[in-house]
Structures are given as C-alpha cells and as structure tokens.
C-alpha cells in the first residue's frame, strides 16, 4: 500500500467534498428555503416596484410605457410630496422627542424600587399592545370637539366650556397625532431605556456618589453615557416607525382639511391604492427609501457607532 494513498487528504479526495465544504453546503441547504421565501416575498416585489417606477402606470390606461426618470422628476417638484414630508417631519420630531423624554423619566423611576411597581408596569405597557387602528378610533372619539373627553376635561379645569376643534385645523390635528402617538409608544421607549439603565454597572453610581455627585450629575455623567447606544437605537427605531404614520391620519383627518395633514405614507397610499397611479407611487416610495437610507446611515455612523467608539 502506498503511503500517500493512506493520507486523510487523499481519502477525502476519493470520498467527495471535505468536512468543511459539506458543512457549508448543508448550511446553504438549510437557509435556502428561507432565502427563497425572502426573495419571493421581498426582493421580487421590490424589483417589480422599481421597474414600475420607470413606467407610466395609471389605472385609466391599458398601456404602461417606459418613461425613464420622469416619475422621479415629477415627485421632486410635487408640492404635495413636500407638504406631506413636512407634516411627517413635524410628527416624527414632536413624537420621538416627547417619547424619549417621557420614556427616560419613567425608566429612571422604574429602575429603582417602589411600592406598586409590579402592578404599574403591565398597565404602562398596555398601549403598545393595542392595534394602531383601534388607538386611532379611540382617540378620535377623545379628540371630538363636542362629545370628546379631552374638551370635557379641559372644560372642568378651565371652569367654562372649552370647544377646541382639534381635528378641523392643521396645527391642532398634527398636535393631536403627536399626543396620540406619544400615548401609544412611550412605553416602548420606556422599556428599551429601562433595559439599558438596568445594565449600567451600579459601582459607577457608587463611585460617583463617593465623588459627591448629585442626582443630576449622576444622570448626566453616568446614566446617559452608559446607555447612549441604547438611546441611539431606540430613537432610530421610533423615528423610522413614526415616519410611516398612516393609521392616525386615516382615522383623524383623512389628510384634510384640504391636503394639509397628509403624511407621506398617506399620500403614497392615496396615489397607489385609491387612484392606482402605481408608477408614480412607486417612484415616490423609492425616493422615501433613498431619503431614509441616507438619514439612517448618517445617524448610525454619527450616533450609534459614535457612541460605541
């Protein structure tokens, strides 16, 4: 028997792929169904939408000609796109800022022990579990100028009848959307920040206390730096989610009065699923994706990775 023939390598060569190669193939086989599913459900529609964005695809026409970048050019000068982006921006900034402040406050409260904590916690996170459309319907009734509890409460506080038409004007309607979103999603921010605060090493607080740091200094110099990455992630999560605001616009104002409270998701929905201008709706959608990708990339590079560094 030849010595060379008996080496492990030569045995492998005669019996097929190496162990590592087999592992790789098995790995691919295992993920293949999921991969195909993702391709079928995500990538294919995405490519289809991209193709549509270069076509004039309107319901009233049987022909769908290729028009290059025309839809994109139209979208960039469409005042309703810019109006909707502005409204969306106001809601994102207002809602996320308030959710962060309130969520942080609650997290700081709940990171310590107090009586009734175990009872209060489930109550606090309840709104997150409610379907957004139900939240919209419920809060629409609350904001109702005549029968709603909000005006009633304000009337009791003011000692005279308060009749604010919350959903009849742009500014108050956007305010109503922000407050409603804050009610539902502050608990999410709270839970994420609470998890972050719970992970801060208690010895750091002890050291700070020994150095004479007060509550504010501990918060500023220990807690916030300790959870900065968590904050960054929580904010981007919420911002991306609020950017898609649709349910509240649908339930509160239908984008009105006029088009003054349209969010970008609402406008795209109108274009795509009410008027079936699929080509144009796809182009606007891709512009949003591009915009969000740039914002998210810069944000992650600046804050998430920055915090990591």
């Amino acid at each position: 028997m030849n010595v060379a023939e008996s080496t492990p390598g030569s045995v492998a060569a005669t019996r097929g792929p190496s162990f590592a190669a087999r592992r790789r193939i098995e790995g691919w086989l295992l993920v293949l169904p999921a991969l195909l599913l993702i391709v079928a459900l995500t990538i294919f529609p995405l490519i289809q939408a991209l193709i549509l964005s270069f076509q004039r695809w309107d319901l009233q026409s049987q022909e769908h000609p290729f028009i290059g970048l025309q839809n994109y050019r139209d979208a960039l000068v469409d005042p309703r796109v810019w109006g909707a982006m502005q409204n969306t921006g106001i809601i994102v900034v207002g809602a996320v800022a308030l959710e962060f402040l309130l969520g942080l406050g609650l997290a700081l409260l709940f990171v310590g022990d107090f009586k009734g904590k175990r009872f209060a916690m489930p109550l606090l996170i309840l709104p997150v579990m409610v379907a957004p459309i139900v939240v919209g319907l419920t809060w629409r009734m609350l904001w109702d100028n005549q029968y709603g509890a909000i005006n009633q409460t304000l009337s009791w506080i003011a000692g005279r009848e308060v009749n604010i038409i919350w959903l009849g004007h742009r500014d108050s309607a956007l305010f109503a959307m922000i407050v409603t979103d804050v009610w539902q999603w502050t608990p999410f921010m709270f839970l994420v920040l609470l998890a972050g605060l719970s992970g801060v090493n208690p010895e750091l607080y002890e050291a700070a206390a020994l150095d004479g740091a007060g509550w504010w200094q501990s918060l500023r110099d220990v807690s916030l730096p300790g959870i900065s990455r968590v904050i960054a992630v929580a904010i981007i999560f919420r911002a991306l989610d609020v950017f898609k605001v649709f349910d509240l616009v649908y339930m509160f104002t239908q984008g009105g009065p006029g088009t003054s409270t349209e969010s970008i998701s609402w406008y795209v929905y109108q274009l795509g699923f009410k008027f079936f201008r699929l080509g144009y709706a796809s182009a606007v959608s891709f512009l949003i994706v591009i915009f969000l990708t740039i914002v998210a990339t810069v944000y992650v590079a600046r804050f998430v990775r920055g915090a990591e560094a």
Partner: protein
Amino acid sequence: MEAKPSIDPKHRDALEQFARARASRRQVLHGAAALAALGISGRARPAAARSAAPSLTPAAISAAQRALRRQTADSAQAAVDAANALDPKPAELNLVWEDGLQLQDPTLFSGPMWEELTGIRINPIGKPFPELFAAQVAEHLGQTGAYDVITYPPSWTADFVAQGLAEPLDAYIEQYMAPEDLEDYHPLYKELMNYAGQRYGLFDDGDMIILYYRRDLFDDPANQEAFEAEYGHALAAPKDWTEYDNIQAFFTEQGGGNSWGGASQRAPGQVYGWFSEEFRNRGGRFFDDETLDAALDSQAGIDTLTRMIESNKTMPPGIETWGFVEVLTAWMAGQIAMVGGTWPPYGRWSEGTTAEQLNWVPETTVAGKVGYSVMPMGHSLHNAGFHLGVSVDSQNKEAAYLFIQWMTSPSISLQRVMLPYALRDPYRISHYESEDYRSRWEYAGDYLDTLRAAADTALLDIVMPGSSEYHTAIDQMVTAAQAGGDIAETLASGNAAFNEITDRIGRESQKEAYENFKALPGAYYEE
C-alpha cells in the same frame, strides 16, 4: 345521444301565446323553438304545425324554455331555476362586499337563502369602503379570480370598464331577466346601469340624499309665527338654500348652544357631494364643454362655496369634522332640527330599531316626528349607491350573474331594502309602492314618495374615468375653504387639480367620457 328536453304540458298554452305575441327576430326564433319543443314532447298538434316545425337543437329548445320562464316567473325564480340547472354547478361563489352593516345582508340573509334554494354557498368577503376599489382592481390585475361577484358605485364604472374588470351583462339579462323586472327599476337607476352602450352592473342601492326635518318643530304654531315674523316666509321644508339657512339660523338661535337648526356632513371624504349638488343646482358645470378645462371657479362655484362656509356658522361647532355618524348622533338625540341632506337609512333608523347589529346607533328621540323633503333647489344628489357585477376573472360567471339577478329581483330586493340592519335603499318602482314598506311607520309613505321624487330629478356623481380623483379634488377644495382658505384660491386649486387629472388621463379621451356622462339623465339640468 343527447337527451331531448321536454316541456311541461301546463305551460303549453302560454308557450303558444308567447310564440304568437312576439314579433322580434329573436323572439320569433324562440317561438319557433318552443313550437318544436311541443312536437319533441310528443303531444298532439296540428299536422300543418308539425310539418312546419323546423328541426331544432336541444340548445335552441332550452332557449325557448328559458324565454318562457322569463315570461311566466319573476327574475328571482328564473335565477333559482337556472342556477339549479347549471351543469356543473359551482359549490361556492365569492362576493366582495363593503363590510360592516352592508356585509350583514349576504352573511345573514341573502347568502343563506340562496344556498338553501340552490345549494351554492355564498362566501362574502368584506372590505372597508376605502379599500373596495383597490381590492377589486388588485385582484383583477393579478388575475386571481378571487371574486365572482363584484360591487361598485356607478361612478367607478368607467374605471372598471377601462380596466376590463367587469363582465358585460346584456346577454345574461336578455337570457334570464323578466323584461317587466327590468322596467321595474326606477328610470334613473335603469339608465345608470348603461355605460357606453353596455350594461356592466345591476343597480342595487338607491342612495338618494334627501333632507330630513323635525315635523313637530315645523308644525308648532309658535315657531311658525315667530319664524315668519323674523324672515318673512313660512316655516316649511326649504325650497332653496336661503330658506334653509334662515330656518337653520332660527332654530340655532332658539337652541342657545344646546341644539341647532341644522347639520350636514362636512368631514373630509364626505363633503364633495354637498358641493357638487348645490353647484349644479346653481347652474355650475364641472368642465368647459369645448376645452374640458375645469370650471369650478364659475359664479356657481363661488356662490356655493361661500354659502356653505357661511352656513357652517349656524351649524354645531366643529361641523367641519362631522360625518355620517356624528350628524346621526345629534339628530337621534333631538339636537338638530334639520339634516341638510343625508342617505336614506336615517329615515328608517329615526323610527327606532331593535336589530342587534344597530346597537351602536343612538336611541331615537325623534320617532314619529320626522318629515322628508327633496333637497333645496329641487335636485337631490344620488351619492354613491352600488352596482352588482360579475368579474371577468370569475370561473363561475353564469352562476354569479344568476345570484345577482336573484338578489336584485323585485321580490328579494324588497326584503333586502326593508332589512332593519341593512344599508340597501329603495330603487325599484315596486319598492316605492310596496304596501308592506309603506305601512312600516306612520310616515313611511312620505319617506318613500320623497325618495322617489328625489330620484325623478336627481343629480349623479361624476361617472368618468378618474371620478374618484375628481371627487377627492372637490373634497380637498371644500375642506381647505372650511379651514379658512380663501374662496377664490381654493376654487382655483380645485380647478388646477381637475386639469391635472384630465391631462394625465388624456384630454381627448376625457372629452368623449364627459359627453357620455352628460348624456346620463342626472348629469345636469338645464333650467
């Protein structure tokens, strides 16, 4: 060898009479086939007839039998018989339907009844109204065949036809529907079923907007005296919008902030109808006839929008956000003296309802106190409504047609428009004249007469490609004005939106569509 159909002897006289009475080519052919059928059934007949009878195929004989059925039975029975004779008979039909209350009818009433009669199960698929259009178009684009029966307001007809979504129904109607049942449709709705020379839907919901008022308040002598003294005309159902606003202001003043003279639906998504009705009553036209340029900013547009905004001031505060339910709540609570136009269910629900499905409707305090009137200026709007159609992608087109013929037939549709929980409203002559319906409450006859009178002179929603976009543009224009926008500017923005839609769809093709729309009886009225 194919079995030959036979004819029931008890139908023979009718058959011969039918054969003699009809003169049209098609009917002569049917008659001849029927005569042949007599021979095939082996009954005695004159030798001359025997010798003259052509040799006909079983299909022709079946056609003769169907024609006979059209003459002797109503369309409901004809549909049931034909469905039972289908071979193969489908096990199930899928209906796309507006969900909520509308869905209760096929779920609880017509679906189970049809299954009992034919063995064909009905599967209603509910969609919220805003998704109804998208769901049907999307399924058609995907050619899924998900729906056999489609449902859509007449104003969508042009878009559905442009997409090739709706099956033409004329051949089915010819084959299966009793002619007198077609004639039983109110003329407006019968005409509304036509689009570009074809019928694509069977009309199924008479959504006439009429005015509701508090008869007890109007009949009160003290109110009458005070009102006439202040405004110089009698307190009665308003004939024009000036009278309407006077009455509204009068009762609002009396209400002292707790009740109001009137309310109309002013919320986004609902208000376009109120503008388009008054605008055309004032002589407004949506487009220039020659150029198809938008013409919303005409004097009629200025007057309409100005008056609507002014009128809001004597309606309940926040009326800009009030839709169907908000107005209903105030009306049922007795807080408003008039509803400045709304859909017919108000009339039925005002008299009280015990249906479980309506437990969300506020308890009525106005039963027996409601009067009805055609809208001010004489032409009420037919707003929305529904056609039932057959999807071109259906694998069961004939069965689907038979089901909708049965649903909309005089006998079945009468039951459906009287269902306490349903939202289908009268649309047949036999509905308006039904003794059963007219005896439902003290003033039910007035209610039905008003709905019929309103339909006699009704205005229609825009029926053109892009109708939904045009309506939305009007809606956005009005709500922008309600939020404080300048009247001239908002009308100009409405015009701009109209022109953009027209140009995008194609001005020339829209000109043709507009001519089709103008040919409908309720497009405009020349005074």
